């Protein structure tokens, strides 16, 4: 910060500016220190989605909910696959196989449901 030069800044305004900046820094530092006390949701950490608050059902129900979140998002399977490096060739093979299997199962499910419906219509 150059003194003397520049567009007519006095000594008083310089010290005021530095005081303001120090005040702002102090406030931001206090805010940071206090934010560590707050809960997870305010931080927006990547574990927010895997956090389950215990409400009326009790901790067992919350634990079950957490497990359901983990299974529907295939977290365990993904972690297991990530343990060892999967070369791009094998990854492509696996993805192709999985996609085909998923489509095949969907088709079979649709056909079976249709047959059940037709049965109920009396065909």
């Amino acid at each position, binding site marked *: 910060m150059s003194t003397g030069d520049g567009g007519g800044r006095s000594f008083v305004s310089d010290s005021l500016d530095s005081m303001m900046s*120090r005040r702002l*820094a*102090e406030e931001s*530092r*206090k805010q940071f*220190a*206090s934010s*560590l*006390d707050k*809960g*997870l949701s305010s931080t927006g950490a*990547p*574990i927010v989605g*895997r*956090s*389950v*608050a*215990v409400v009326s059902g009790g*901790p*067992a129900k*919350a*634990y079950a909910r*957490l497990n359901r*979140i*983990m299974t529907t998002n295939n*977290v*365990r399977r*993904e*972690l297991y696959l*990530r*343990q*060892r*490096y*999967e*070369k791009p060739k094998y990854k492509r093979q696996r993805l192709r196989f999985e996609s085909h299997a998923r489509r095949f199962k969907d088709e079979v499910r649709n056909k079976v449901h249709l047959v059940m419906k037709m049965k109920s219509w009396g065909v």
Partner: protein
Amino acid sequence: AKAEVASKRQQALMDLLGSGDSPLRGDAFGFRGAGLYGNTISEHKRSAATNPMNKLVLHVHASSNNTILSLTDANGRVIVNSSGGSVGFKKAQRAGFEAAYQATASIVNTVIEKNISVPRIELRLKGFGAGRDASFKAITGLTNWNVCRIVDTTPIPFNGCRPKKARRL
């Protein structure tokens, strides 16, 4: 005289732990003085609402070889530690359900002995070992603590580091 002083200190620590005030001074970085930009903690006692000892966190690291438990305050500063090995199990048995259950039980016992009040407790589970289920069952079965939140903290990379090569090559 030394023994007296030591026992006095012990007594003071027990009182402190029991009073609900955190035994850990300073802000989250252990900083207690006046920094360049002012104090990060006020001179007055922390208000009841923001006291980090209001919510304790039990970190459960349940790996495939062992279970490590840490009871900390809300800021993450450790109060008690325990693990499968610390309760007397050796090698492969540390990974089991029983080891994790006993490790959690040892933490519970320490808390009761030291008269630490547990208003709320949060469970942070890391990993998918046997200790994951065991610690939850122990906490809900052995105590009447108010479990306020259950979080999964397993580190999931969003395509981060390259893992080790596949086995059998």
